[in-house]
């Protein structure tokens, strides 16, 4: 990238924008881990530290109106979908000001404005929803795309097969993004799948399927752009296997007995943030001051979010049974 002033270079898929997006997610999640140990955040907390290139790259290819369905490891997806960090952090705190009114917590982030449909803690449970969101778009003649994120563990679930089959059969505008971090909680891919070539597996449904280096934000953004363009142009569903790695445990409760420290260390050598930073630096597109500015911005956003969450209010107990049924029967 040699022309940082170029409009395209400054767009959402530009290296600098990707770096900024990844940094925002990283700092937010690092804060979540800290706050979890301080018991400000409770429940299960699954962070995606190490996997930021996937979400930054894929979301960079989306447009307003596109929908996202994600898993329980979705803080980054939610943030980059456009949910304000304040609302996310308030949700972690269980505050009324949270993006799900405090009723969802870390695993159930939702936001209608951002068209962010969870935050789904049932592995593969979001896949049929994504198919349905896309079906509605197709039936109503809208050229929106629905992106569905899921882990490689979901590919062993029947719902993966049911969903991709249905999407392919009806040529629906869904982008299936498999975040292959090699472990379904503690079960390694080779111990759970007879076919470990996931793109091959997906392609058996007649869906264009590609394997992408999920530690390289530029590669992800590039693949996502092609995929989204194809889906939006009416090409039917598309599948990306994004090969990535989570640097931290599955959740804050995970003693991590199932993988070697050396393996984690080897993957950390390919941390997507330093990787992109050094490539920008060596191309002369980012100096230390530029990096410091990005760092400061990310940190400020997190601190502001924490302050907002700390000052948040709790829903009164009297509202406990709200939102079980809609208020007012007319749709």
């Amino acid at each position, binding site marked *: 990238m040699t022309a940082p002033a170029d409009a395209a270079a400054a767009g959402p898929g530009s290296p600098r924008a990707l770096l900024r997006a990844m940094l925002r997610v990283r700092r937010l999640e690092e804060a979540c881990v800290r706050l979890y140990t301080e018991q400000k955040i409770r429940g299960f907390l699954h962070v995606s530290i190490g996997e930021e290139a996937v979400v930054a790259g894929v979301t960079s290819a989306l447009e307003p109106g596109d929908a996202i369905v994600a898993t329980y490891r979705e803080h980054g997806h939610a943030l980059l979908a456009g949910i304000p960090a304040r609302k996310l952090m308030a949700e972690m705190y269980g505050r009324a000001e949270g993006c799900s009114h405090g009723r*969802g917590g870390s695993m159930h982030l*939702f936001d209608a404005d951002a068209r962010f449909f969870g935050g789904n803690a049932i592995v593969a449970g979001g896949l*049929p*929803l994504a*198919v*349905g969101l896309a079906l509605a778009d197709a039936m109503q003649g809208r050229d929106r795309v629905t992106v569905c994120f899921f882990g490689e563990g979901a590919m062993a679930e029947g719902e993966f097969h049911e*969903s991709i089959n*249905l999407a392919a059969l009806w040529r629906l505008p869904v982008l299936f993004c498999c975040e292959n971090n090699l472990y379904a909680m503690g079960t390694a891919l080779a111990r759970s799948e007879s076919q470990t070539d996931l793109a091959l597996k997906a392609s058996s449904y007649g869906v264009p399927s590609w394997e992408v280096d999920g530690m390289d934000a530029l590669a992800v953004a590039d693949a996502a752009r092609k995929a989204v363009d194809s889906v939006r142009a009416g090409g039917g569903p598309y599948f990306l296997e994004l090969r990535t790695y989570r640097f931290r445990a599955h959740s804050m409760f995970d003693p991590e007995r199932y993988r070697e420290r050396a393996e984690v260390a080897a993957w950390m050598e390919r941390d997507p943030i330093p990787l992109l930073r050094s490539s920008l630096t060596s191309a002369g597109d980012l100096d230390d001051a530029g990096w410091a500015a990005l760092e400061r911005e990310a940190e400020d956003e997190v601190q502001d979010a924490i302050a907002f969450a700390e000052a948040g209010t709790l829903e009164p107990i009297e509202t406990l049974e709200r*939102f079980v*049924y809609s208020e007012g029967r007319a749709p």
Partner: protein
Amino acid sequence: MKTTYREAMRAALREALQRDDRVFLMGEDVGAYGGCYAVSLGLLEEFGPERVRDTPLSESGFVGAGIGAALNGMRPIVEIMTVNFSLLALDQIVNSAASLLHMSGGQFNVPLVIRMTTGAGRQLGAQHSHSLEGWYAHIPGLRLLAPATLEDARGMLWTALADPDPVLIFEHGSLYAAEGELADDAGPVGIDRAEIRRPGTDVTLITYGGTLPLTLDAAAQLAERGVAAEVIDLRTLRPLDEETILASVARTHRAVIVDEAWRSGSLSAEIAARIAEKAFYELDAPVARVCGAEVPMPYPKHLEEAALPSAARVVAAALEAVGAGA
């Protein structure tokens, strides 16, 4: 006009497809086959494959797709062949459809209608005959309907479609062929209240869906023996119209619950508990239940019949309650 339960359901589907472009029907064999109980016969020809969609055999996939479509502006009617098969979609129904509104803090309601058959009586064995609607009645966030009459078969669907939340409609397989008179202008009906199908003063018989006809039969037999039974058709299994039940028990002081489902942990158990909680001092006799035998449904006719509630068993239970038992 003379019609059948099946034709009344079909008329309701046709009207829904005509009235609202957002409505579409989706499920296994709803199109080319004509609906496995012939409910949607002819609708594919009338509305085309976009709006009458045959799905693959993937209950979780197409029920979940229905939820997604409902979230995104459509009004899907999803048909699952039987309640037994709906277990393959249980995750989507419970973890998504029923939970999304609450989990999202009120942002995402799911205006989805799911229809399915339920019940036994046709010698279909243990994997096509169960009455599992009571399980769904356990789940907050769902509304459950059990049309037992032609009016309800014709009228509940449109009201269900107007509901912003997921509605499950349970159609007892033995009712489809039921024939009777239905007003030409029959239209939408309320889905909030139970109905007293036969007034009486001596005992309240509480039932719904497929067991309504035999319960009415039992009430007629009881009348011949001088016992005036009141018959309540629940119509909506969740939320329960407790008020109608309690008011009736306050008049008759005796209750018999008729439910084809198994007794343990059932809807009949819930109703009995509520009567005990809220109308205990009104009771002149223990609450009685006539339920299905606690076995996976056997195939042979005599065993299936023995496993199911019958008018004779209801009569016996009611006579016992009024102190006129053998």
